[in-house]
């Protein structure tokens, strides 16, 4: 039998097992949309500092963030954020600042109006002054009078970040926040998020770009197919990814003789001859395999036209992690 998370007091259930320094706790959280399971049985404790949620598109990152903000109710399990359940607890919700993934903004308002509204609704004194401060933080001119609807994607993104920051939230939830920003703005935002993390805020940021996550220098939670498949600091995750088998395609003069040469080495786990001039090999040590290829080319006196990694993309990394956790 599944228990509807809202039939019991979810915040109380979660609070029983909340570590003292945790700001976000998910216990056995699942979320289904009809037959589609978007998030499956996730246990997660998030502490102050930056935590990156890494996963391919459609992995369930946004659903996970929506659950954390209380925007969606879990099918099972419980969510606890800053002392309560954000779906029902105004105080808990007041601790959250969200930059949603979607592009929607109040098109007819000026940036200052949008952020002032957010400040007013958060109960701040002197909301306009707070809105100006937040807009300055994201390097947007508060006196830019034109409607947000006329802004570029990057400027709209900065308005979204400003409205999320205006009430100085303890938990900042950022769903792909660097989308649409130019490189300089990206760097500025990354530095801003790092500063907030260093200052003791909990910054949860989702991304599907590994390099982006690396720049946050953060703890990483890897989500794939709705499941949490790995977590640790970035270097741990990177090391973990490096243990997966890699595949290389080699274009050469004689695939058959090259494959026969390669298969003798322990660095090569397998070889497929694709055609007379192409061989694909599987290895768990890419550097050793490359050295071996060059040596084999010399030994056989044949030219290697190209060596192409076949699975250096993030999707294959996630596939590997999913398979590993299963």
């Amino acid at each position, binding site marked *: 039998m599944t228990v509807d998370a809202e039939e019991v007091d979810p915040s109380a259930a979660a609070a029983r097992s909340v570590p003292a320094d945790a700001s976000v706790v998910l216990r056995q959280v699942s979320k289904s949309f009809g037959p589609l399971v978007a998030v499956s049985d996730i246990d997660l404790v998030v502490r102050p500092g930056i935590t990156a949620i890494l996963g391919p598109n459609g992995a369930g990152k946004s659903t996970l963030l*929506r659950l954390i903000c209380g*925007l969606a109710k879990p099918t099972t399990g419980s969510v606890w954020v800053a002392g309560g359940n954000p779906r029902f607890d*105004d*105080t808990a*919700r007041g601790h959250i600042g969200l930059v*949603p993934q979607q592009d929607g903004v109040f098109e007819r308002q000026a940036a200052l109006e949008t952020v002032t509204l957010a400040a007013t*609704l958060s109960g701040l004194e002197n909301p306009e002054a707070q809105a100006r401060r937040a807009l300055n933080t994201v390097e947007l001119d508060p006196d830019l009078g034109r409607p947000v609807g006329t802004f570029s994607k990057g400027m709209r993104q900065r308005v979204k970040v400003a409205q999320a920051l205006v009430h100085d939230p303890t938990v900042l939830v950022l769903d792909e926040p660097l989308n649409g920003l130019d490189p300089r703005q990206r760097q500025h935002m990354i530095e801003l998020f790092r500063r907030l993390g260093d200052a003791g805020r909990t910054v949860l940021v989702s991304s599907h770009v590994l390099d982006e996550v690396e720049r946050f220098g953060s703890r990483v939670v890897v989500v794939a197919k709705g499941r949490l498949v790995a977590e640790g600091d970035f270097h741990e995750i990177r090391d973990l990814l490096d243990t997966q088998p890699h595949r290389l395609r080699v274009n050469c003069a004689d695939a058959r003789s090259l494959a026969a040469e390669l298969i003798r080495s322990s660095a090569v786990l397998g070889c497929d001859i694709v055609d007379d001039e192409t061989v694909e090999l599987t290895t768990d040590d890419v550097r050793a395999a490359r050295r071996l290829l060059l040596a084999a080319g010399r030994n056989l006196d044949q030219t290697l036209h190209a060596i192409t990694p076949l699975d250096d993309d993030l999707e294959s990394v996630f596939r590997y992690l999913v398979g590993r956790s299963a």
Partner: protein
Amino acid sequence: MSSARRIRALYRALLDQQLTKSRLLLIGGFSVLALVLALSIGSQVEPDSRTEAIVGFLSVYGLGFMVPILSLLFASTTLGQLVEDETLVYLWLRPNPRWQLALAAWAAAATIALPIAVIPLSAAAAIGTGGDGGIVAATGLSMGLAAVGYSGLFVLLGLVFRRALLWGLVYIFIWELFVARAGAGAARLSLNTYPHSVLARLTDIELPLAERSMAAGLIVPVVLAGLSVAATAWWLNRAEIT
């Protein structure tokens, strides 16, 4: 900070989103048509049956079409548009009770619906009757009650249904225009019957659907608006926000 200040901020933000050029043109069109038709009726009908003709026209055009359709257009998009363009999250996530958002949405919708219901149709009543104060007052009150009730109902409809405009038109044209007129039980579930009753009783002219008491006519639209605000708040509490 007081609840009133937050509600005012929500109200202003929601109101700002409503007034677009195309909608203002539509309001203007409906209003001008009301005045032209009232003038035409007033000039063509004999003086002793003029009041009856004008009240009949206000019942059909005002209560039957103009007020419900314009209320639907504005009220259903007050929150519905935010759902559609995924901006509701910016208001929903703030630490405020849901009733404040529901109340602000109704107030924003009614702020537009009330004057566009009361002013042009009262003016039409004045033009058509040659300035009969009693008819003008009855028109203003009944149209105002209709606008208040429909605003609440259609704000909720816009939040709950994706194609709220379509469902609202089905309610107006199928339920209120046909089903409600077929039987007393169905009529009781039609909002239109209450302002119709107020208009009929204050003008002493028999109108279809005008079978409720004066008290019911005055109270039910306001109560319905209040219940709609409560239901909107309840829905906002339960809904999943994108």
